């Protein structure tokens, strides 16, 4: 019964996407919109197949930057959240600063990073770290702060140290918000890497993107946009999978 429901719910989204593609194809191939401005889906697929090897080579570069940056970003965000939760004065001092870093547009600091760290991978990874640590830090901090006080009091009454309270109660109870934040950060990571590649670099999907844009090869442009979406989606799926593995106590869909 549940299975049927999930298939029908997927059916709706799949048919909506199919409809969109059909309309797009018609609009483009009948010439309602000029073909060089809006290539048809079939053109995009052709471009994708044609450039498949180049796309894959560049993906590896972008993915490497994204994943290394994500790992560092998650680690930094995690540590910052724990410290802010543990020490009130750190929270008061650091939290406004963290919010401030997020008001600076990524596109504005990327050229500076290139200026300081060159055209190699370093500025790209730094940019990814900057964009990914924020959701983790804020998500984790909220999670840590909203752990039910009654649990903590009970643990204290049982003589637990604050270290034990952290290990047995706070940390595991923040897993769920942590993974929600990780999903957001994972998608930011890919986009962050691509943006930083726009502003200078030797390889990567962002570099490829700039190149095909300058050549007005819009079919290739669309191909790479879709590829970036797919990579982000796969990363998010991976996070979901990881969450299921790390949180076996969560009731499964069928039990709800």
């Amino acid at each position, binding site marked *: 019964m549940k299975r049927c429901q999930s298939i029908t719910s997927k059916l709706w989204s799949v048919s909506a996407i199919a409809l969109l593609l059909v309309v797009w194809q018609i609009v483009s191939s009948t010439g309602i919109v000029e073909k060089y401005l809006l290539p048809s889906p079939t053109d995009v697929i052709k471009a994708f197949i044609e450039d498949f090897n180049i796309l894959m080579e560049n993906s590896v570069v972008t993915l490497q930057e994204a994943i290394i940056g994500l790992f560092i970003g998650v680690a930094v965000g995690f540590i910052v959240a724990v410290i802010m939760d543990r020490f009130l004065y750190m929270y008061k001092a650091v939290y406004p600063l963290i919010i401030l870093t997020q008001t600076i547009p990524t596109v504005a600091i990327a050229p500076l990073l290139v200026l300081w760290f060159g055209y190699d991978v370093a500025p790209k990874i730094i940019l990814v770290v900057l964009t990914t640590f924020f959701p983790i830090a804020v998500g984790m901090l909220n999670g840590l702060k909203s752990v039910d006080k009654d649990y903590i009091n*009970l*643990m*204290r*009454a049982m*003589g637990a140290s604050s270290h034990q309270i952290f290990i047995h109660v706070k940390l595991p*109870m923040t897993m769920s918000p942590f993974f929600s934040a990780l999903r957001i950060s994972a998608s930011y990571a890919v986009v962050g890497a691509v943006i930083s590649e726009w502003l200078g670099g030797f390889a990567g999907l962002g570099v490829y993107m700039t190149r095909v844009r300058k050549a007005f090869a819009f079919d290739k442009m669309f191909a790479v946009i879709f590829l970036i979406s797919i990579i982000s989606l796969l990363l998010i799926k991976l996070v979901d999978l990881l969450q299921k593995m790390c949180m*076996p*106590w969560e009731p499964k869909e069928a039990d709800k």
Partner: protein
Amino acid sequence: MSVLSIEKVSKSFEGELILKDVSMELREGELVSVLGVSGSGKTTLFNLISGLVKPDEGRIILEEEDVTGRTGKVSYMLQKDLLLPHKTILDNAALPLVLKGMSKKDAREKASMLIEEFGLAGTEKKYPAQLSGGMRQRVALLRTYLFSEKVALLDEPFSALDMLTKQSMHAWYLDVMQKIKLSTIFVTHDIDEAITLSDRIYLITGKPGTITKEIIIDVPRPRPKDFNLTTEFLSYKKEIVSSLTP
């Protein structure tokens, strides 16, 4: 012999006196209720006994040891079971032993020896979300017991359960309590529950809260199943109601 005694305890918060000169005692194997309306300082008394709050005056003595304002001595159980959702039933029960520094393996072993006695056989590897409310409260009691084998402090632990489950939990609790030789302080506002379970009832009333009456429920155990329908029960209830309402 008294297991726990509270001696002339007073406590105020932000200049307002909440409890004044509260004294009571719990003898071995007894179940004593503290009964009072909401806002009478029951919860404060509860926090004082568990050590989470330090009294302004007075002492709390646990088995001849002064435990005033010290946590890690008496554990408690609330209406919310407060089981950790990410730990299995066995690990939840064994938690206080782990906190005291016992190895995970030994703690599990010790907890699993009691699982059956608490009517929890077969649930060891399950997670709290997979158990009913009544079963979860049993786990919470096992955890409380593994923390302090002498005294259990209970704050309306059964009030979230439906009537029938509550009744069976009462019977179960009295049975287990006797088997493991536990003494209990039971904080509640449910008059029927207090009469059914208690050996003695302390009434806490007024502002600041003071203990105004001690009622001895002089009915031998095990009490008859329809005890709550007897005239004896009703006369206790009348006495309590008239003392609680000014």
